[in-house]
């Protein structure tokens, strides 16, 4: 990764200036901080400070009008033991992550494999499949989703025509969550593009060698494609998982901001918004935010930990 060349660059920097002449180096160092100043200001005032403040607020009662009032672990205790809606929001979010992310990545990989071997029209299909990734995040498409999966919507009508009466997905617990998950799966274009780029970097010799050894198509996929693609797969998995934990717009649109039916689409972020900005319990919402931060951190750490067993880096042999 990129971070590995930083020490090397540092050594080079230390070696370069002529002995006794420190001024140019210091001026260049000053220049670096000038370039960096907007970022430093943003990182301090809009990232680090808010993180510290939200940690503090999570131990308080705060309604934006009166000064924060220290309550210790009260918010966390309430979250974990006295608030069934909190746990329903955790359940909805986990259910959504577990359904949407693997389905989306599997579809992305499948389509990327199909596109890779295409001779003609590859660019067209790549763009057409990618389009939903950009458009699907919009309110417009989320509203389309609600209408299409509603009682009497296209999906409901089609299923009724073959004898399955759902009464509309968005009105039924479980089904509504599935509808939101499908909206995410539909946006498989972004990971697909990354898969495709990864596939194109696998040397053709590997496949030729495998073919000479008599490996079947499936065997080539398992023994060549998957290991060579595992860093890209890992990248997509981490990225999509982190994003899925934070999804807001489709759940808001499908349930008109309420997280229904029966809290089945009450995603974590939707409940956080509800507690903080609708009910003005900023302390409670901060506790939720910090818990989310820790959970995402832990999930990412676990993914990195397990990646050692299945992610294969081709340049490892050189070190």
């Amino acid at each position, binding site marked *: 990764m990129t971070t590995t060349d930083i020490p090397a660059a540092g050594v080079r920097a230390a070696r370069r200036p002529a002995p006794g002449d420190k001024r140019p180096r210091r001026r260049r160092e000053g220049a*670096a901080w000038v370039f960096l100043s907007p970022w430093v200001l943003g990182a301090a005032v809009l990232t680090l400070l808010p*993180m510290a*403040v939200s940690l503090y607020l999570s131990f308080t009662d705060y309604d934006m009008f009166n000064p924060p009032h220290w309550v210790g672990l009260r918010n966390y205790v309430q979250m974990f033991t006295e608030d069934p809606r909190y746990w329903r929001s955790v359940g909805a979010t986990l259910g959504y992550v577990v359904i949407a992310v693997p389905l989306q990545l599997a579809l992305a990989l499948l389509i990327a494999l199909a596109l890779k071997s295409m001779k003609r029209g590859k660019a067209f299909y790549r763009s057409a499949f990618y389009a*939903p990734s950009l458009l699907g995040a919009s309110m*417009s498409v989320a509203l389309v989703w609600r209408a*299409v999966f509603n009682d009497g919507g296209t999906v409901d009508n089609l299923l009724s025509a073959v004898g399955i009466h759902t009464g509309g997905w968005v009105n039924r617990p479980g089904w509504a969550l599935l509808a939101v998950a499908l909206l995410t799966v539909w946006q498989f274009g972004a990971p697909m*593009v990354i898969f495709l780029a990864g596939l194109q970097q696998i040397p053709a010799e590997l496949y030729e060698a495998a073919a000479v050894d008599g490996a079947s198509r499936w065997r080539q996929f398992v023994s060549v494609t998957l290991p060579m693609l595992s860093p890209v797969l890992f990248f997509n998995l981490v990225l999509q998982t982190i994003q899925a934990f934070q999804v807001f717009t489709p759940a808001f649109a499908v349930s008109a901001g309420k997280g229904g039916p029966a809290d089945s689409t009450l995603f974590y972020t939707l409940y956080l918004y509800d507690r903080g900005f609708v009910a003005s319990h900023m302390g409670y919402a901060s506790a939720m*935010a910090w818990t989310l*931060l820790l959970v995402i951190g832990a999930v990412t750490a676990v993914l990195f930990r397990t990646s050692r067993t299945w992610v294969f880096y081709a340049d490892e042999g050189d070190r």
Partner: protein
Amino acid sequence: MLYPLAWLLATSLKPADEVIASLRLLPSRLEWSNYTTALDGVSDVPVSRMLANSLLIAGGAVLGNVLSCSLAAYAFARLRFRLRGPLFAFMIATIMLPHHAVLIPQYIIFNQLGMVNTYWPLILPKFLATEAFFVFLIVQFMRGLPRELEEAARIDGCGPFRSFLQVILPLTRPALITTAIFTFIWTWNDFFTQLIYLFSPEKFTLTLALRSFVDASSQSAYGPMFAMSVIALLPIVLFFLAFQRFLVEGMASSGIKG
């Protein structure tokens, strides 16, 4: 794959009685009045005003991101300074930081500055390079440029500022264009931040207008609602069609060359 988009377009032109009941995609006759109703907007604020609001916010965000992210990226990619390693690692870590962990204090800060219900909370953070993803993207691109360029410029008497402006920046154009396009589309699609910070209808963006349109009208206004959806989606579609090559390449390169 593109069926939902076709459905959106078709439904925006359907007469009221066909919107829900009909399985057919195409309307029996084109109902242009959906669009004239939609253009009237919500709460007496016309759609043209909301379109202008959306454009202003997205335009400001693009300018801010391109400026501040390219400055920070140049320092990280090409200059040497103490703490570069730790700061770079921190910058990468903020890509994974959930927005919600900083959301509430940010809101409190902007509230105390009297900036809630203005566009500042939506634009100002972009001028401070808070979207680390783009800093990273530009860093990756700048690292690919040959070092000799700046060394030649230095021999010709260029300081870091001139060689940034005259040598590096022009060569970084593809990454800057990718940053600009993604920023525009993401800001345009953003709902959460706008929902929190804006509450006067005359300040609404198209996304917020859509939401309150849904709240205010019943199923009978489905046609106009989807007409407004089409209007809200149109700029992204146009951007996508115009710049799809940059978008797809940008996505592929930012994801891979890690």
